[in-house]
């Protein structure tokens, strides 16, 4: 479904990503973890088109999308959330999600009733209670859910989630895990950046570990947890 091949990104003298390869199979839930500054968000930006890589390619369902603008990629089935929250602060929660469903209608022609889609998504994510509240007063955790809901409303085939669990409490994060598993069961692939290791270990089928812009380990959650290089990256080399 998604293939990232040898992606490099350089900001001035800083090499943010070096030769990153990554693959997400259709309908799978893949984790992307790593210490702060490892390049996770940069990789998301490269995949969704907000950042141009200095080298490498991004393929979506076999098609090279490296030079496509962000909105064209979204129309091919990419959705995402942002680590630094990007909700539409002048709109209510419902309108945030509705705007996304309406966007889908404008380019997808297969969205008969955006209002209904918005209602369904809000129920699914558990935001019904605050649907008519303006987003500005909500907690960070809820704002992250608004972003997830907005991402879902465009019905992507691959959803990239950037730390959706930060700011959620224990039970909320458990619900988020359930939601992710449900999505995957419905056939949506998910690439998940998350610091909540418990959540990642619970839901992901495969985990990629990024450190200093390089993938240092790929495997099942158990394999990655036992990997010496990963432990060194997280805890400092012994």
């Amino acid at each position, binding site marked *: 479904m998604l293939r990232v091949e040898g992606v490099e990104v350089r900001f001035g003298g800083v090499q943010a990503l070096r030769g990153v390869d990554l693959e997400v199979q259709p309908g799978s839930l893949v984790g992307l973890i790593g210490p702060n500054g490892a390049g996770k968000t940069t990789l998301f*930006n490269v995949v*969704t*088109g*907000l*950042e141009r890589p200095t080298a490498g390619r991004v393929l979506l369902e076999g098609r090279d999308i490296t030079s496509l*603008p*962000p*909105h064209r990629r*979204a*129309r091919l089935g*990419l*959705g*995402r959330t*942002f*680590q*630094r*929250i*990007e*909700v*539409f*602060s*002048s*709109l209510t929660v419902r*309108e*945030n999600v*509705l*705007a*996304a469903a*309406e*966007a*889908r*209608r*404008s*380019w*997808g022609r297969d969205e008969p009733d*955006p209002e209904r889609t918005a209602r369904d998504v809000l129920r699914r994510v558990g935001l019904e209670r605050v649907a*008519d509240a*303006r987003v*500005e007063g909500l907690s960070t955790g809820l704002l992250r859910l608004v*972003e997830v809901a*907005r991402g879902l409303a*465009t019905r992507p085939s691959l959803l990239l989630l950037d730390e959706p669990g930060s700011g959620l409490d224990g039970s909320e994060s458990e619900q988020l895990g359930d939601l992710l598993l449900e999505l995957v069961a419905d056939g949506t692939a998910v690439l998940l950046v998350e610091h909540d290791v418990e959540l990642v270990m619970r839901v992901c089928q495969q985990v990629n570990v990024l450190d200093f812009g390089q993938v240092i380990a790929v495997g099942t959650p158990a394999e990655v947890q036992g990997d010496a290089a990963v432990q060194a990256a997280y805890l400092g080399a012994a």
Partner: protein
Amino acid sequence: MTTFLALTLVGLVVGCIYALTACGLVVTYTTSGVFNFAHGAIGMVAAFTYWQLTVDWGVPSWLGLPLVLLVLAPLLGALVERVLVRPLYGAPVGVTLVVTLGLLLSLIGLANIAWPPTVTRVLPKFFDGRTVTLSSLVISGNQLLVILAAAAVAVSLRLLFTRTVTGIAMRAVVDDQDLVALAGTYPQQVAQLSWALGASLAALAGILLAPLVNLDILGLTLLVINGYAAAMVGRLRSLPLTVAGALALGLGDAYLVGYAPGDVVDVIKPALPMFLLFGAVLFLRQERLRSGSLTGVRMPRTPSLRQSVASGAVLVVVVWWLSGQLGEGRLATVGQGLVLGFIMLSLVLLSGYGGQVSLCQMTFVGLGAFAMGRVGGELGLLAAVGLAGAAGALVALTVVRLRGLHLALATLAFAQAMDVVFFKRSLGYGGSLAVERPGVPFVDVADDRAYTVLLAVALAVGSVAVLSLRRRAFGRRLVALNDSPAACATMGVSVTATKLVVFTTSAALAGFGGALFGGLRGSVSSNDFVLLNSLVLLLLATLGGLYTVTGVGLAAMAYALFPVLQDALPGLGQVAYLLTGMGALALGRNRYGLGGQLADLADRLRAARPARALRTEVAGAAG
């Protein structure tokens, strides 16, 4: 050869003055992040102050010059930073723009009071009559002074920024305010210093420019605007490139006058700086979509269809009643307010909802009036909407990559260029184009009262339409685009296409307003659509509240009723500029304007309703 040298000298002198003003602009912008649209006005006030001191009061220039350049101008700059600019750090460009525009108008207003334009004032050239001869070239003392002053300033700035602690701190503030604060320097003090320095440079440019032209308030203010173009060549950052841009502008101007045929000069010369500005802005790199750039705008609640239709009906009834009570002159004023309100609707759509700054809205209005005047009748209305809409689309296509300040400067350049290249030629300086009123079945539009009521109907219908657009998918998309372009793009929304649509719609709406405006006036002239009027329009709309239709309606009414107040309080007219300016200063504190305040009040009243009502509401929401 001698001609060439002489032209080069003239161009160099003008270029040096542009360089001085542009460098001041760049210094303040890079260290404070606020672009000072009042830069030219500060130069103008300084030139007049210098005239006051040396010519009127007879203070010797060896005392007057340092007094203005080293004491008064820096004090003014520092004061402006402290009072106006400091509350603006981190505010969206639209707000900083309007506040410095307010300052611009206030200074123009003050100057009009202090130095009434009825008297001709002349600032003598420095070292008048004395010359230096360099082979075949005769250089006047004044020219030499300008070149030497510019060179001295260039060298001093270079030394300041590379050799002194303060200068290095100034450069550091540009990179990271917080880091500089951690290192023990106060970023705000550094920014204040840069505003003082900028004001000083503006003053120097103003004083050197004044003897070459006339001491004319608007002329001096706007001539220094040419420095914008040079500053943009340096991308508002690089001083050497800025100086190069300024010199190129000065020389280009001089060679054009010297070598091009007269009719070409007439067309191109006045627009040359604006072409350069437009070109420089267009060569900027595409601004990337970034996350983490939220504007933090909090838009007031949108009224429901029922509420907006009811308010529109009330407006029409009130105007109908009022128009029966007023005399002919008053009626025209009310009509003007209504038309202005209609035109401002186009700004609510474009700048309020869509967040796209436009300093050329009156240009679209002018195109609408022009089309109506040339074509006339129902077809004229269509032509007005079509021509203005097409111009809007054209502008959008060229500036679609730009945001914020760059967009503002590009639209400013477009407005100014259209003024000198198109309106002044097609409508004439003082000349005018007759514009007929659009015909409506069963209404005698020639009757002023009927036409005024018709304008009220147009405003009401326009308001209801804009509001219902806001409640629909397109409105949500616009607001979303304003809140987060990056998130919009990742939903599959084409930012480019959306901007194109909103620019075109807004321009077409303004064009329709232009046709109505022309009909109201009976005739229009190029003076109606000058850049300054676009600035005043944006300022008024922002004061009323750019995010609300009610807000711009209030602003338009305030404008219309102003002459009525003026009758009661003679002398008010002189302070009109000043009042508008003062209002803009208040925006630094509250950026939502009057309309935003009212919406807040309504929200609070709603929240304070009796508990019984609240309980019912909760029960309703739960049910």
